[in-house]
């Protein structure tokens, strides 16, 4: 084994040394929230956007629209932490959005039943994804991409190319536009889910095992962790949360059209990878993910209100995703190298 030539000064260290957070390390951990605030301040004073950007109303719009993306980002965290991609989550969200609307408007089912059926379907997709990946050892990348295409196709068939606008329970739409303290209620739901996810990842054996699996699955198995069961569950939970995201999206928008969900999934992935550059650099984490989602939303909204065309937000999302993956990979490597 090649030894790393640590300076021999450490030879006497058996006394626990608390690593004091250096200013640089703090800056690294909190660069992203700082950047989000800077971007916000910039657009608040930028002449072209200063009229409409720094309003309470715009903040509400930003947080409302981002609630759904952030929720999908949290869903994506579960498989990602154990090292698996789930590309079907955007499509799952679209599916529950369309199904909830369709069950009410076409079959006339009550709101609660439509939601329950849709969530069960979303969870079922997670069950299938997990089965393919853990039991049949199929590549998660291709499996979930295929699942995404399949769902988008099925929803096109289900809607017949129509948009469901009528027959949706007004209570749901009312809920979607309700604000508490000036902030949309749906955003609070996202925060609650985020809090539960945070608790899961940091304070339950299950959540902690996901990080261990992501680090070294063989070693995780050899310390008695039920690796394939836990990975399977991560897909199931992801499917369920993405399903909730779809229902919230219906509540906010009030209508449903079949789509492949890419417009939800890719900003969510950008948020997850941006999140891996903050708070616990090099690792996917919940708080970083929420900050990442807000950062993306603030930037896109600022660009839009400054008069940038529609393509600008896609370009921004793309750049943010590339930069985030690059940065988090770099930080991860740096940490693994033990610096």
């Amino acid at each position, binding site marked *: *084994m*090649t*030894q790393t030539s*640590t300076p021999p000064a450490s030879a006497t260290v058996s006394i626990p040394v608390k690593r004091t957070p250096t200013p640089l390390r703090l800056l690294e951990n909190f660069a992203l929230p700082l950047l989000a605030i800077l971007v916000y301040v910039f657009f608040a004073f930028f002449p072209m956007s200063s009229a409409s950007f720094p309003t309470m109303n715009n903040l509400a719009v930003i947080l409302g629209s981002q609630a759904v993306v952030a929720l999908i980002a949290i869903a994506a965290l579960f498989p990602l932490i154990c090292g698996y991609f789930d590309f079907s989550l955007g499509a799952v969200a679209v599916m529950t959005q369309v199904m909830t609307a369709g069950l009410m408007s076409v079959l006339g089912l009550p709101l609660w039943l439509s939601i329950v059926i849709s969530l069960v379907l979303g969870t079922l997709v997670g069950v299938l994804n997990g089965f393919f990946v853990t039991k049949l050892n199929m590549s998660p990348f291709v499996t979930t991409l295929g699942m995404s295409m399949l769902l988008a196709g099925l929803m096109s068939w289900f809607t017949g190319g129509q948009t469901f606008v009528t027959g949706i329970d007004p209570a749901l739409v009312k809920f979607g536009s309700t604000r508490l303290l000036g902030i949309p209620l749906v955003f609070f739901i996202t925060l609650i889910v985020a809090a539960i996810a945070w608790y899961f990842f940091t304070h339950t054996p299950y959540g902690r095992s996901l990080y261990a699996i992501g680090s070294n699955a063989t070693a995780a198995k050899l310390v008695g962790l039920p690796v394939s069961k836990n990975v399977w569950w991560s897909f199931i939970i992801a499917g369920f949360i993405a399903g909730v995201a779809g229902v919230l999206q219906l509540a906010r928008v009030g209508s449903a059209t079949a789509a492949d969900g890419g417009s939800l999934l890719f900003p969510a992935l950008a948020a997850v990878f941006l999140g891996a550059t903050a708070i616990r650099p090099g690792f996917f984490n919940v708080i970083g993910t929420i900050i990442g989602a807000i950062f993306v939303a603030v930037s896109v909204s600022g660009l839009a209100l400054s008069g940038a065309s529609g393509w600008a937000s896609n370009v921004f999302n793309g750049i943010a995703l590339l930069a985030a993956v690059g940065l988090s990979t770099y930080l991860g490597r740096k940490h693994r190298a033990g610096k």
Partner: protein
Amino acid sequence: MTSTSVNPGAAGESPAAPGGAGLALSIRNLDKSFSGTRALNHVSLQVRRGTVHALLGGNGSGKSTTIKILAGVYGADGGELEIFGTPFDLHGYTPATAQQAGLRFVHQDLGLFDDLSIEENFALDNGYPRKGPGIDWKHLRTHVKALLDEYELDLDPRTPIRNLRPSDQTMVAIARALQDQDASQELLLVLDEPTARLAAQESEVLLERVRRRAELGQTVIIVSHRLREVLAVSDDYTIYRDGRVAGELVAASPTEDELIEIMAGRAVQALRPTGEPSHAERSPVFSVTGLRGGPVRGIDFTVHRGEILGLAGLVGSGRSSVLKMIFGEHRPDAGTMTLEGAEYRPEAIGDAMRAGVALVPEDRGGEAAFPDQSVTENLAVAVYGENFTRGVMPRGRERTAAETLIADFGVKVAGPEALFSSMSGGNQQKVVLARWMQRNPKLLLLDEPTQGVDVMSRADIYAIIRRAAAEGCAVIVASSDLGEIHALCDRTLILSRGRISDEVAAGDLDVDGLTSLVLREKNVPDAPTEAQQ
């Protein structure tokens, strides 16, 4: 601390004059500091032409730093360097300079492409021979075949590296490194831990070949933790300790103990058999009867409280498989196991752990390490379930537990939050042991417990294992290192083709005796009656 120059009189032969034709490499007064800490303090290294020179030292002794400076990976702070008589300025010395000067490195990770053929591995290093717009495969094949023949490797150049036995892989890497050696340029081969990944028998084959290259005039520097192997192959020794030269032995034949004493600055007792009555009591903890599965073809044995039981045997004899079946990783085809008087049949690893069984696997990097996680995390991972109380994971308690374990097991690390990958191999292994010992196992299974571990850490690990036994744990050690088996075990089972061929009590045989028992079985044809049982 002054460096002691050990020079056994009779075998002594003064090193050739500095810069003279006799030296392939001469380093003098080499200094290197890392952020204010002296890693190298005026060290030297004099390698005579056509010899095998061992560079030895514990972790942090500076030998790796020296090799990295030679390779041009680190810059030196000061010192003089001559390679084959040509002086080199250490400022502006790069990997390219090292290459030009004739230094060739083969590291523990061989840098071979496993899926590609031998010839392609050669060509990727040295360029493909061209013929018109294409590749001159025929020329490449003859060229590589000639090289393989020269290195006594009877291999088809088209064989993928993956299909070669481990010692052949290393030898191919060596041949590749030296492929442009000819009359016009002499090369110096640096082998960095060449046998760390090899089982004992494979390293013997490899070192024998290295020895033969040296007899043909090849100069070799070898860095290794395995002293017995180094002793078998080396002419000269340079030993570092704490960044200084602790000893230089020229044309000497020291004993293993002498080398260790120079490396450690003291005699290290733990590496020898204790010679004391063992802690073994007569109460059985664990036993198997008729165990079969994989290469294991029916074995019976019992381990007692406080006993250290050794499993020795060639690769494929079933050493590791026995441990894996006991740990619930593989399900046995047949046989019964008893743990503390009750029938024991683990369906999964979790069952084995709950029953009080622990396994330290052979491949630390692949099967035990969570390299990008902290030491705390690496320790807590085996007790998640136990720690989870009242709906929370007690982070504070995990940290305190980690601090205690780090102190108890003598782990040298910056702190409990330091990353696992930041530690040396020996300290990583101590953390893996601590991970399991915190569960107070009744039965501790160890597979190659000191592979890739330096001598000083090995002594610490032996002490940990003996302490576990003294506290009443039953221990099973599977190892290809018979010196280790000899030093540790109260009783040793020799496995041969999945059967127990011999049982040896401590003190009945020395290392050579054990070796011959293990090797002898290799040539004995399988007795048909036995196979049919």
